[in-house]
């Protein structure tokens, strides 16, 4: 599904954010990326969506080497991946419905597909009665659910979530995690970066632990150990 081969990322002038990362994630896996703040989790995910380029090494997504993609091929890549951020990153002048529809539009879906799919996605994330609301009019948990809905717009085979619960309270956190599990059950690979011990331990899935830019532990059914 996704493979990192000898990947390093050095921020100029000399900050080594990732140091020689090797890992492979299989289709339909649910992987937690754990580690303390500054360990390099976000950096790893940014490389996977080509928001940044590695200083060294290769990254493959479904056989395709993505680290040398031309700028014009980036939209195509990003339509294969659903992305969720800690700070939601919704388009503030679009409603919940339009945020999701926008992602479908840029993916070239027909109007009919969009009219059918957006309500379906909204129902999946539990927001079918909030479709006309703008991000400012939604709670944090609701915003994150819109963001997850948008990430699903392209029907991605892989969903990348960087601390999606970082800004949420306990109840909303578990709502989001349950939603991610449900999406995973429906067949999507999920990569979840978090430094929340509770979440990692409860999930009882594969855990990759990073520290100071290195993979220090990679276990099936892992626990959060530091």
């Amino acid at each position, binding site marked *: 599904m996704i493979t990192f081969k000898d990947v390093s990322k050095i921020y100029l002038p000399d900050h080594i954010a990732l140091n020689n990362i090797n890992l492979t994630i299989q289709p339909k896996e649910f992987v937690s990326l754990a580690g303390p703040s500054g360990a390099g989790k976000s950096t790893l995910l940014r490389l996977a969506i080509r928001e940044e380029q590695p200083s060294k090494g290769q990254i493959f997504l479904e056989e395709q080497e993505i680290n040398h993609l031309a*700028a014009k091929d980036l*939209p195509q890549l*990003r339509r294969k991946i659903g992305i969720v951020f800690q700070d939601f990153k919704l388009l503030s002048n679009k409603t919940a419905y339009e945020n999701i529809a926008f992602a479908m539009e840029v*993916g070239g879906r027909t*109007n009919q597909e969009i009219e059918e799919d957006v309500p379906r996605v909204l129902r999946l994330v539990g927001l079918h009665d909030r479709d006309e609301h703008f991000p400012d009019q939604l709670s944090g948990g609701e915003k994150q659910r819109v963001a997850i809905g948008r990430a699903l717009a*392209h029907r991605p085979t892989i969903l990348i979530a960087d601390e999606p619960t970082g800004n949420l309270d306990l109840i909303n956190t578990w709502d989001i995690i349950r939603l991610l599990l449900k999406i995973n059950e429906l067949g999507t690979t999920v990569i979840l970066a978090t430094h929340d011990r509770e979440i990692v331990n409860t999930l009882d899935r594969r855990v990759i632990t990073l520290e100071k830019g290195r993979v220090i532990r990679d276990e099936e059914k892992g626990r959060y150990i530091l």
Partner: protein
Amino acid sequence: MLTTLSRIVKSGWLNFWRNRWLSSSAISIMGLTIFVTTSLLLINVLTNSLVQILRDKIDISVYFNLETTEEQILETRKSLIDLEEVESVEYVSQEEALEKFEEKHQDNQLLMQSIQELDDNPLEASLNIKAGTASQYEQIVDFLNGSQYKEIIDKINYRQNQAVIARLSSITAVLQRSGVVVSIILALMAVLITFNTIRLAIYSSREEINVMKLVGAGHWHIRGPFIVEGAFYGLVAAVIVLIIFYPVLWLLSPKMTAFLPGSDLFYFFRINFWQILLLQIAVGVSLGVASSLVAIRRYLRD
């Protein structure tokens, strides 16, 4: 393709509408630009009509000796008309000259009497010559002095008018040239301010642009709505300026006419209403589109 276009237009329209209070600064700047452009156009019309009035006031008259025959004068006229510099030549016969004289001096008993006492018509036939531009009179006079017609010409009143003609010709030249320079400077300033306003508006959307990229939007999906929004700024600004211009001209035009007889701005405005509206919209929309296109370029580089 068509769906993409309609989505882009719709999205641009929604952005415009939802930001309408924020948009108002861009619109007012753009309106200012269009206002300046339209004013420059109208001032140009005024200058031209002023130049025209001045030009109509200048002519030179060639007076022929009393014994000259009408054929000779008409022949002179013909060769003058053939000159490139000459715009029109009007023939005033002796009789016409007399009529004009009598008409002009009908209240002056003494003059009238003395003229009626004469047997012959003392007034000379003349040609009134108008040139294309004021600077060409010199050449026309040179032509006449150097030709075979010199014999039959009594006098040319150019010398008397020369100073006036020279002054007018330099004034009209300065007027037109400075008009062009001022127009270019003002228009350039207006364009730069508009561009900067739009650049600022797009700068404040850079985070959104980045988000659009991350959800897989292609360049046109990102750029399109901004361009449409820019076009709407231009459109609305053009309409607002037109709405302002109409009553202002209606009020101002009569005063202008009093000052510069023969010019009627409001009339010009009404006659060319659609062309002006079209011009304003063209200026506004192209300015909005071009500014957005340039301003967003740097955010699309990867």
